[in-house]
């Protein structure tokens, strides 16, 4: 409980260690696509709204391009309303499977870390 509220709360102004984002952005981006096909700016806005800070295009696009090569996402150009087209990314079945696998792994990892970081649990363990 303490851990989750000690982080920066204001969406957009969040500034997490870049290492953390590098490790988690992959499945966060997959999660952002789980609701349906989406495009670059919408994904960035969604992650920003969720409090992960502003992800740069130079980080997001290479990631999605690699996922496309790996068959986790497919892309499709759709005509915009009057303006230029947008490149939509959509999860494949493999992408969906990868998302649930990584989410489960991440949940186990954070449970472990939270448990380990909990001052009470730690002192009790080290005293015995």
């Amino acid at each position, binding site marked *: 409980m303490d851990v989750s509220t000690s982080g920066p709360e204001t969406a957009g102004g969040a500034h997490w260690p870049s290492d953390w984002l590098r490790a988690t952005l992959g499945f966060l981006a997959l999660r952002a696509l789980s609701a349906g096909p989406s495009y670059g*700016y919408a994904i960035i806005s969604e992650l920003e709204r969720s409090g992960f800070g502003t992800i*740069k295009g*130079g980080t997001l696009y290479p990631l999605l*391009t690699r996922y496309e090569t790996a068959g986790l996402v497919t892309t499709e150009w759709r005509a915009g309303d009057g303006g*230029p087209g*947008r490149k939509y990314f959509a999860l494949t079945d493999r992408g969906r499977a990868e998302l649930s696998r990584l989410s489960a792994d991440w949940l186990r990892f954070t449970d472990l870390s939270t448990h380990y970081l909990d001052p009470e649990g730690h002192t009790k363990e080290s005293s015995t």
Partner: protein
Amino acid sequence: MMHETTDKKWFDELVLELRLRQVHGSAIGDTVASARELLGDTGQRAEEAFGPARVYAAALELPSAPQNEWVRRALWPSLLGLLAFLLFNQAVVSWVRSEQMLVSPAQLALVATPVVRNAVFPARPSEMSFSELGGQISVLVTARPYAVCEVVFASSPDDTASRAGHHLERQAITLGPQAGSF
């Protein structure tokens, strides 16, 4: 205005870098269009959103098109077709003359080349291009008109066997390119 020119320089650098990496043209176009799309949405400058062009080009890890792709796609099927044509020609001539088809060791080696090639470098079904398949099918298609004219010449009573053979050879050569366009 300054905005535009610095972005133009960035995009020029990006395209140049991707070209140097031998990325396929359509992939370059896709990269440029998606970068423009995001810049249009965020109103950022290119360098600000994507970092240095060279670094971004490298980070995308786009596959480079193999340089000798045309050999596999164009040269090989046509060579195969030529080989089949020569073999068929020889076979027809000796069939019409009711002779045995003689094959020298060198010819046998030539004919065996595709078999050996397929055994050594087995093409996976996904890799087998349509043009390669097409090349092999066109060999079968070219074979058919010859089969027809064989029947015609063989059944025409006026011609002697040797004349028929001579005609057939000429006919085969004139028919060749037409049949290939099937």
